[in-house]
């Protein structure tokens, strides 16, 4: 494969970075190199993250927060240091505001579920409204559908413009005195759109609504500063940010987390338990019932160290450059329609598209036979697909290890797909 356009500027030293990711050296069927363009689905993991977890299992494995012995100390320290590192990574004012969950989905459900039982200021009931958008991941739709159905509140949402941006024209009507919660994705995993959170947060806070941000695609790609952002709660997930599976994070302001009732009940989240009733431990333990994903938190800390060593501003710059290059190349392809913004402005590194006359499953199958891994389907965003009148799409998504040559391989593969299915172009 040859590079078709001028190399974009702002790229990271991907040769060095790729050396850290064992899987990127893998050969696929037919001895083809892996061209992994599915990082919005899950990212690959560097040796540093894998090794940190292995070392922990081999040297310090123990349960946390419960044991006096040396291994228990080591494990507890490592787990709590992980929390501090992750707090620093998102500039959280206090590390006890960082709650470990199993993924973003659990973090978002934690909020929706506890709001179901919250009393006072945060209670949600008939007449109240919850606002989401048509571009949400199912994990930021279904929890709010369950909450509103169960409490009698109403679910409302931002529509989308043809370019795949939030339709902000009715924001003042949409977010109003009845609005209790606004929960929005920061960077869409399907359209790639980066949403104008500042404006929305300002409006939501004007009317006293809680703001929840699904930062699942944002924390991996952008420098995040929750103190500056101004949202009340944010959710993200380890496996999309070079971390392990089995771990996610909910960050929330202390006063809000303190006011919410507990989510899961059990070991570690209690202050005291009698058969007659129980009281809850202070944050963060209150929301971490049972044995937490200890080694996964340690792996996530290693992931955060890895990203920080590169610098999230540099990661964002690379993501921008590679996405701009991909958009340039894809726009040239006949019969290809991009769903979402077609210019790399306020745009993350996921590009979903359609090829006239070829179903996404078939596109990704042909690409896979060439070693190019992309995702086909609804990407857990059925309403956003419905908005654009399609059922599914093909998505290529990029990360800090993605190279322009891989984009070229994608474009080449799309042309081959069209030839295979005899689509004229």
């Amino acid at each position, binding site marked *: 494969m040859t590079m078709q356009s001028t190399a974009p500027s702002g790229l990271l030293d991907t040769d060095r970075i790729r050396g850290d990711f064992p899987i990127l050296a893998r050969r696929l*069927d*037919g001895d083809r190199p892996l061209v992994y363009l599915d990082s919005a689905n899950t990212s690959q993991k560097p040796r540093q993250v894998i090794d940190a977890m292995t070392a922990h299992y081999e040297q310090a494995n123990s349960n946390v927060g419960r044991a006096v012995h040396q291994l228990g100390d080591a494990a507890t320290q490592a787990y709590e240091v992980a929390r501090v590192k992750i707090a620093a990574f998102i500039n959280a004012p206090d590390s006890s505001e960082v709650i470990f969950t199993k993924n973003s989905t659990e973090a978002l459900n934690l909020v929706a579920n506890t709001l179901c039982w919250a009393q006072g200021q945060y209670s949600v009931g008939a007449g109240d409204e919850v606002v989401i958008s048509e571009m949400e991941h199912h994990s930021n739709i279904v929890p709010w559908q369950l909450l509103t159905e169960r409490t009698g509140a109403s679910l409302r949402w931002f529509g989308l413009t043809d370019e795949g941006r939030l339709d902000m024209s009715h924001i003042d009507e949409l977010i109003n005195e009845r609005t209790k919660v606004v929960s929005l994705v920061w960077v869409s995993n399907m359209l790639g759109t980066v949403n104008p959170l500042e404006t929305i947060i300002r409006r939501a806070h004007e009317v006293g609504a809680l703001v929840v941000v699904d930062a699942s695609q944002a924390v991996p790609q952008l420098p995040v500063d929750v103190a500056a952002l101004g949202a009340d709660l944010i959710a993200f997930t380890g496996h999309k940010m070079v971390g392990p599976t089995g771990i996610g994070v909910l960050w929330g302001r202390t006063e809000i987390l303190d006011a919410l009732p507990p989510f899961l009940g059990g070991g570690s989240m209690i202050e005291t338990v009698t058969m007659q009733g129980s009281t809850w431990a202070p944050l963060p333990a209150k929301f971490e019932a049972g044995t937490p994903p200890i080694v996964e938190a340690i792996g996530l800390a290693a992931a955060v160290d890895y990203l920080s060593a590169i610098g999230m501003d540099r990661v964002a710059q690379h993501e921008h450059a590679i996405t701009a290059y991909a958009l340039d190349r894809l726009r040239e392809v006949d019969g290809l329609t991009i769903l979402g913004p077609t210019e790399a402005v306020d745009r993350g590194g996921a590009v979903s598209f359609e090829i006239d006359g070829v*179903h*996404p*499953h*078939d596109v990704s*199958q*042909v690409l*896979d*036979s060439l070693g190019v891994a992309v995702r*086909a*389907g*609804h990407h857990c965003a*059925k309403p956003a*697909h419905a908005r654009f009148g399609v*059922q*599914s799409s093909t998505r290529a998504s990029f990360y800090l290890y993605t190279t322009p040559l891989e984009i070229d391989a994608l474009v080449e593969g799309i042309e081959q797909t069209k030839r*295979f*299915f005899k689509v004229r172009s």
Partner: protein
Amino acid sequence: MDLQSLYQEIILDHYRAPHHAGLREPYEAEVHHVNPTCGDEVTLRVHVADGVVEDVSYAAEGCSISQASTSVLTDLVIGKKVDDAMEIHDSFMELMQSRGKVEPDEDVLEDGIAFAGVAKFPARIKCALLGWMAWKDATAKAVSESEVRHDS
């Protein structure tokens, strides 16, 4: 992966020009099936009379494999006795779950043998089964429907 073994010409032919497509009357049962992982959908109607599959009609959105497989299904079951059609269904299921280790019987499966290659692509098996599962479901409904009618 050998693309040709997945996308046999027969499959591509059915995909480009699916047989018995469209929704028709009469029918005793209509079902709507979705493949939750990819979103592919089929609405399928079955018309059964005197124990015979008189018609299968459908509207489907999906990939080449799911479209072609539904098309082949209609060729195979329309005009057959329900029991015989169920046996064909079972053979097709068996083929798909065989990981490519069962030699398909062309006398039974006709164009369906082209799907032998699909069995080697785990992610695509669900595509090939979408129409078949919908048909089985609809036929079961149509039959119990007609039994109820006979009983009363």
